[in-house]
């Protein structure tokens, strides 16, 4: 009989990389389905374009670098799906494809591929598009006709944009609409309930760590309450939570393990920084929405945060 020799430990938990990635995609589905239903077929096209673009880009890079093609792990697909979810549903498809290319090339492969990137690839793709095509990236809409296959849109401002000039209360959309996703916005961000459910499942499964979302949530609520209750005409904390990309960002993007701190303390710091930046950018910054930039900025600080919060080994001295 042949005995195989391996190093200890000889048993493993059942979690695998593939399971992690595909579970995240599954948890995104409620919000994703709603986005496609609400914005009709263009949203579906957007999803397909982004997914193909990220996956193909990754294949090309792996081939050029003569590395094994590892599309099966699902991370490139996940990046594509998330990218589609944060883009305006009526964005020209070629821009979406460019975004996917940038997300994987500049956002992931230049750093060495999966696991080594500094910035969140999906958001980096979006930030690139935002800087390249600001007009298109701030043009939002809802379907022009009831027909499901209709390609036209009526331009409508998002809830956050209706509160401009900074600031005039909660804008035009009541909270019920925000909860059920009956408002313009990015394809994947509108259906708040779906995002909350999916995100909580992700946290319950321990695939996402609760610390960053919780810290961001608390910081956002506390800071926005301070403004809401002391200033004139600032939007309410619940509006902050539901009107923009906060839920999608905090639950699915700030929890990206690769680009966030690996220490527990660091994750609290990351979440607090993110929450504070969101409030300040939204209330005082040049953009209506700050979720993307807050995450990217905190991504940049992540190596330093890791450094400063490095745990002391048991019984260790500095």
């Amino acid at each position, binding site marked *: *009989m*042949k*005995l*195989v*020799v*391996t*190093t*200890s*430990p*000889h*048993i*493993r*938990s059942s*979690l*695998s*990389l593939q*399971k*992690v990635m595909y579970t995240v995609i599954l948890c995104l589905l409620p919000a994703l389905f709603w986005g496609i239903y609400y914005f009709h077929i263009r949203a579906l096209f957007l999803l397909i374009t982004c997914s193909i673009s990220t996956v193909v880009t990754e294949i090309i890079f792996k081939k050029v670098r003569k590395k094994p093609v*590892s599309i099966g*792990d699902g*991370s490139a697909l996940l990046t594509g799906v998330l990218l589609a979810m944060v883009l305006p549903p009526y964005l020209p498809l070629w821009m979406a494809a460019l975004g996917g290319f940038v997300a994987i090339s500049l956002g992931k492969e230049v750093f060495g*591929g*999966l*696991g*080594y990137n500094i910035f969140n690839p999906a958001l980096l793709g979006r930030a690139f598009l935002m800087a390249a095509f600001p007009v298109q990236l701030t043009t939002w809409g809802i379907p022009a006709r009831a027909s499901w296959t209709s390609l036209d849109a009526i331009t409508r401002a998002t809830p956050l944009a209706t509160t401009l000039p900074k600031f005039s209360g909660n804008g035009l959309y009541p909270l019920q609409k925000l909860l059920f996703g009956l408002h313009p916005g990015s394809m994947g961000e509108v259906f708040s309930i779906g995002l909350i459910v999916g995100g909580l499942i992700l946290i319950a499964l321990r695939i996402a*760590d609760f610390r960053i979302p919780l810290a961001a949530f608390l910081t956002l609520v506390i800071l926005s309450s301070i403004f809401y209750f002391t200033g004139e005409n600032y939007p309410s904390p619940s509006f902050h939570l539901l009107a923009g990309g906060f839920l999608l960002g905090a639950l699915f993007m700030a929890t990206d*393990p*690769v680009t*966030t701190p*690996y*220490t*527990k303390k660091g994750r609290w710091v990351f979440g607090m920084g993110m929450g504070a930046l969101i409030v300040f950018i939204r209330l005082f910054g040049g953009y209506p929405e700050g979720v993307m930039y807050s995450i990217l900025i905190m991504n940049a600080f992540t190596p330093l945060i890791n450094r400063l919060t*490095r*745990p*002391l*080994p*048991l*019984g*260790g*001295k500095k």
Partner: protein
Amino acid sequence: MKKLSFPGGVHPAEAKLTASAPIENLPLPEKVVIPLQQHIGAPNNPTVKKGDEVFTGTLIGKGDAFVSSPVFSSVTGKVVEIGNFFHPVTGKGIAVAIERKEEEVLDPAIKPVEDPENAEKEVLLETIRAKGIVGMGGATFPTHVKLSPPPSKPIDTLIINGAECEPYLTCDDRLMIESGQEIIKGVKIIQKILNPEKTFIAIEENKPEAISSLQKLLEENMEIVVVKTKYPQGGEKQLIKAILKRDVPSGGLPLDIGIVVQNVGTCFAIYEAVYRGKPLYERVVTVTGEVNNPRNLRVRLGTPVSCLVEFCGGLKEGVNQVIFGGPMMGIAQISLDTPIIKGTSGVLALKRKEFPPEYPCIRCARCVDVCPTSILPTQLAKIVKFEKWDLLEEYHLMDCIECGCCVYVCPSNIPIVQYIKAGKDKLRRMKK
């Protein structure tokens, strides 16, 4: 009550298949192969030669150094060979092969200590040394060394380790249930030697029977502490953290903070050495996993593992891995001829599937969260992988206890411990 615990750790399936299987004596094998090196420390030299007749308990190897521990024949018979044989830890090593005779005779030198209750400390220590007692918790460090702390380091606390946190293993559990009295006597001997202010017997909460049976036997200045069921609760630094909330300094020993930790099996062996004069030539081994009848066996050292397996009804169809020890820290064996030694607490048969490939680390920090020594396993693995040797110490490589928690949880299947061992090798070589 909040269960005593330490930060980090994992909860693999307990799989204590043999928890209610009483300890049985394994029939004596035809031939034993007794490695001369069964402890940590200086090597032993053989004291017998080919052709010698030996009794059960006859000294067959010893060393001169303080940190060494003699080995004894485990059967009565004839030395047929002294040579290189399979060794469960080092792969191959010098061993004495003895062919058994029908009749068993105890070595005449075996005599109990007189009036053990009132014996001198020095006598007790010398007995422990002479009878080849080593730590049975797996480390096999010579016990008399551990029990001779330098005067500059007084011991205030003794912890008896009955945690047995490795999945599958039940030998300590059964020993506590069946031989509580003997263990308590062993503990008293250690107390006598060290004179600690406090003594704790630590048992994981998943062993209620052991807890209740020992509870009845406790003597003064002994206390049972129930610790949380979690791997590696039995690691001494973790146990100390859990019970006393004290940290063993990085790179140091429990001794440095006035603590000695001894395994329950060690206490039992001390009892036998002192009260019966018996050298360490047998031990309890859990044979478990994919064998047909998992059991707890009392086994003579040097018995090839094939005998144990056969007694337990043989391996199940498809078994392709046999491990000495538990699934988390045990060592996979190349051959079924490998002998049981002092430190072998279990024999685990597994059906291993095709190994999953190693994927890139996604920095999910699961390894960081479970690491009981709070180091950064993912960073260490990468440092070794990309050969940035100068960073190893900055990231506290040497603090790793190789418990394997990090590998257990890693979704990317990164053999972190393997990288860490390579790193430790490199560091030692660089220091030279």
